[in-house]
């Protein structure tokens, strides 16, 4: 299949995207690196000069730093868990013949159409608000004390909101993958006496493994950078209970206007993200070249 001939061509065809991304990566990265060693506060032009690793030190000694790393992992992990499992379940459900399939599909994928800050606003104000959110209304209907989601379960609430936004993405990719499963293989498995569950485990799941991997990897990258939802709902609080790395950087970058500190935070975030990515690649990457 892959002959020398196509390989040469392949290099050529990859060139544009690789070059573009190289520039897109290197230029800001170099500038960020440079800033991260500078004393550079937007609001204070008088502060400048080389500071060595001070920005880094300052960033990781932030009282919120370790909790924010942990929160980041919980957020990513929680959302991945919900979206992947939920996505598979819903994809399987939508793959069945049902009445009004088209409408159901559009309903299921529509949360993806909502801009993240808007989604956070909707959930915060209309669904989860302990005073006049729908959930509160439901609790009250059952005579229960409404839950103050953002105060009692801040990180969980954010996981729910973010998972709601990303569930459609997972569902859609998995559904498309599911539908490319060869019909005759399914038939063969049926003939071989595999019931629905076995067909799922031995046939569907392996078939979807690449798609699942892609969902996990792409979402991880996005989820590592979630901050708008936090900003709108909890502002990282109470305490640092819902501060993640991205939000911490936001605090440094856009509240403190400490471009140097933010740059250092960015570099730290990139390093951590790479660790996560390498770990993930180890865990699921082999599914890619199957």
């Amino acid at each position, binding site marked *: 299949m892959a002959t020398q001939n196509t390989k040469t061509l392949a290099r050529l065809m990859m060139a544009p995207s690789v070059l573009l991304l190289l520039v897109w990566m290197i230029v800001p990265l170099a500038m960020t690196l440079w800033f991260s060693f500078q004393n550079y506060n937007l609001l204070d032009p008088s502060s400048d000069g080389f500071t060595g690793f001070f920005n880094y030190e300052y960033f990781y000694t932030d009282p919120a730093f370790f909790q924010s790393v942990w929160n980041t992992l919980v957020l990513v992990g929680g959302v991945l868990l919900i979206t992947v499992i939920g996505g598979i379940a819903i994809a399987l459900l939508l793959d069945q013949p049902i009445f009004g399939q088209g409408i159901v599909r559009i309903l299921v994928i529509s949360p993806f159409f909502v801009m993240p800050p808007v989604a956070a606003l909707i959930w915060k104000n209309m669904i989860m608000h302990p005073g006049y959110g729908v959930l509160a209304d439901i609790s009250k209907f059952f005579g229960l004390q409404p839950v103050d989601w953002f105060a009692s379960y801040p990180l969980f609430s954010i996981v729910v909101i973010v998972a709601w936004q990303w569930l459609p993405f997972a569902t859609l990719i998995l559904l498309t993958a599911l539908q490319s499963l060869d019909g005759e*293989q399914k*038939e*063969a498995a*049926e003939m071989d006496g595999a019931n629905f569950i076995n067909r799922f485990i031995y*046939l569907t799941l392996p078939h979807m493994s690449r798609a699942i991997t892609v969902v996990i990897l792409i979402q991880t990258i996005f989820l590592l950078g979630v901050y708008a939802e936090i900003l709108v709902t909890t502002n990282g609080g109470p305490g640092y209970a819902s501060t993640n790395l991205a939000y911490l950087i936001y605090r440094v970058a856009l509240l403190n206007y400490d471009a140097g500190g933010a740059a250092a935070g960015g570099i730290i975030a990139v390093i951590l993200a790479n660790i996560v990515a390498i770990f993930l690649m180890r865990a699921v990457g082999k599914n890619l070249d*199957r």
Partner: protein
Amino acid sequence: MGRITLKNVSKTFGEAKVIPSIDLEINDGEFVVFVGPSGCGKSTLLRLIAGLEDVSGGQILIDGKDYTNNAPAERGLAMVFQSYALYPHMTVRNNIAFPLKMAKMDKAAIDKKVTDAARVLNLTDYLERRPSQLSGGQRQRVAIGRAIVREPSAFLFDEPLSNLDAALRGTMRLEITDLHHQLKTTMVYVTHDQIEAMTMADKIVVLNRGNIEQVGSPLELYRSPRNLFVAGFIGSPKMNLIEGAYAQSKGAKTAGIRPEHLLLSKDSGLWTGTVTVAEHLGADTFLHANVDGIGLITARCDGEFGVTYGDRIYLTPDEGKLHRFDGRGLAIGNAGLAA
């Protein structure tokens, strides 16, 4: 254990009526072969029996019980797909082991069965490969392996040997026959290979455009084809069908004589003709000759028959083995019966 009854079964795909209406009884333990031209509905029929397609009408009974609406898994049949349908992400071993795993057989027993099957199928060296790393014939053998490790109530084979070489095909033919003798399981077998059909079948079903033309034992079909279609279809090279004066002289619209029932000579005979093509197979020679007053005739003779294009030859039909057909194509009496 495996009596399959089709009652008035029909199948349409959209507009196309692929199977108008079929009644067929397959007895328990019988080896039934479906033959018929490409596209006549053999695979469709197998798939209907397997439950992979819904019937458009009629009933499918297994051991007298109505299974028309049951799922494939409930029917307990094993099938070799014409297009193999291997599991691409599993190794050959796992492909073959899959049905056993599904049957919750214990590991040691599975291993033994798989190893045995692999040996029979000449696949031992390939057990750890993925299907994509196999040759066409190897893939086909994996598909066979997946079916024969099981003990289903019936086997359904859809052209299982089409991609194998003659030697292997011979071996596999014997293996499948053996399996049949051992297990005495009903087998439904689709093939285009005349030798397979003739040697393996207890009963051959000749299909044409979704209709059954004739059902019978191999020699029955060879000797007394019920109509022109069966006459032309069973036997290779195919029967010469002759119309005109000669046929009329025999009291028929069409007279049929098989190539092997023509006596060839370079000196004398009933008919004279000119050789158009001589195909030398080593063991036989197929001669295509233009016979004066009759037309193109194929004859077969043993070994070498030293003629080439343009040579004059003489042919004498073995009139005891003549087949006669009336205007509607149905056989009259049956000359061939005597043979």
